[in-house]
């Protein structure tokens, strides 16, 4: 039986030598958590099923540094590695694959030029092509106000979800649910779905968002944004049946270790990979 995956995410500021892992709150207020490849190795030893690196400096000059981080990590870490942030074309992707990444994750480039999803899937295989979606709730009082959008019921009212690009700095008007279905058709192998409302809140994943997308696509969905406790992870698996849960700060600041989270999930009879 296939296991649910627990994925620590390292948001990397590569303006520092060797890079720094940082964590923002609602995509702002930055705190420092460590050096990327060192944290990655610690999480690997602790039972991480996969590791995601996101370049949040995302300017062109840093690209070699992300390759360096991946290359250094892959010498000592033997689980799948995903690199994302600022990948704009096949050449950028090729560099991180060459450094040892197993998958790349794209958001902004995919929304600006959707054909890149088809190209990446064709060149490197769907399994290597993750589309990241940063979604924010847009509440509506009357569903008719947004009749071209997919409206979802949440405990806080009806809303649709808008895609954001450039690490949350720009909104696109694009419906995140429709976009998820489109990227699957274009050949994406996986969706890394982050709730901008929940990110950094530690109040749990955005269940209505996660369920709305997971129910409409057949590729694996990784839930992200809002994880503060082990219960949040068991909740997202039980209520939405997503394939994987991503978390950052609970691991970075030692609230829980990956091992503790997995032990907890095992008591809830959720299939996980023991160490």
């Amino acid at each position, binding site marked *: *039986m*296939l*296991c649910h*995956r627990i994925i620590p995410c390292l948001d990397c500021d590569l303006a520092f030598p060797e890079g720094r892992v940082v964590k923002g709150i609602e995509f702002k207020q930055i705190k420092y958590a460590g050096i990327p490849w060192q944290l990655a190795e610690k999480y*690997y030893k602790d*039972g991480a*099923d996969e590791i995601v690196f996101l370049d949040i400096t995302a300017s062109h000059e840093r690209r070699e540094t992300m390759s360096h981080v991946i290359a250094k990590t*892959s*010498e*000592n870490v*033997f*689980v*799948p590695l995903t690199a994302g942030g600022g990948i704009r074309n096949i050449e950028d992707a090729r560099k991180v*694959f*060459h450094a*040892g990444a*197993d998958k790349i994750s794209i958001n902004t480039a995919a929304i600006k030029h959707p054909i890149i999803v088809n190209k990446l899937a064709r*060149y*490197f*295989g*769907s*399994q290597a092509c993750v589309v990241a979606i940063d979604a924010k709730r847009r509440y509506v009082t009357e569903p008719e106000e947004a009749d071209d959008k997919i409206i979802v019921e949440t405990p806080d009212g009806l809303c649709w979800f808008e895609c954001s690009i450039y690490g949350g700095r720009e909104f696109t008007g694009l419906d995140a649910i429709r976009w998820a279905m489109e990227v699957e058709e274009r050949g994406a*192998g*996986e969706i890394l779905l982050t709730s901008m409302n929940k990110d950094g809140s530690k109040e749990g994943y955005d269940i209505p968002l996660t369920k709305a997308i997971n129910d409409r696509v*057949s*590729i*694996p969905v990784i839930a992200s944004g809002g994880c503060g406790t082990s219960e949040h992870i068991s909740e997202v698996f039980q209520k939405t049946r997503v*394939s994987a849960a991503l978390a950052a700060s609970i691991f970075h600041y030692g609230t829980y270790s990956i091992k503790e989270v997995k032990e907890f999930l095992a008591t809830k009879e959720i299939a996980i*990979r*023991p*160490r």
Partner: protein
Amino acid sequence: MGNIKSVCNALKYLGAKPVIAKSPADVKGEKIIIPGVGAFGKGMDNLKPFIPRIRETLTSSIPLLGICLGLEMFFEGSEESPRTKGLELMKGKVVRVRTKLRLPHIGWNSLEIRKKACPLFQDIDNGHMYFVHSYQALPEEDLVAATTNYGCKINASVWKENIFGTQFHPEKSGPLGLQILKNFLEL
């Protein structure tokens, strides 16, 4: 393109000195590994210049390990590329996984070891391995060393004399995957 780098990293971590064969003359090590991600036809095309040399080494009992596509290429052919012949080191065809679940089969799945005597699985007690594939080999039953379940039975490993194959990726399967590679290196 593929996982050659990851396999080399894992081998180096285990203290081995892997050489990536650029020409048939480079195929002269104590062990041979054929890794592989991608389509069957393309894989066989890339392998073509090396085939005579690989056959030669096999007759001198050098152990061979095929990973994922590498394993698939051991067989007679694949539904993925019907016009391409495989290495025919083992009898049987490679077919698309017949399951109601989502394909590709991606992620960590539990291994059921069928052949405890298989040297690859010494000190491995039915752990989890990382799979990424849509096709699987259907060999003769007595060549199946391990299986997994994904809405159907999947052959996860094959073994015939000095030829070993894993459908999963030991180089991406954590400490247990490394143990499998270590067992291969120690043959």
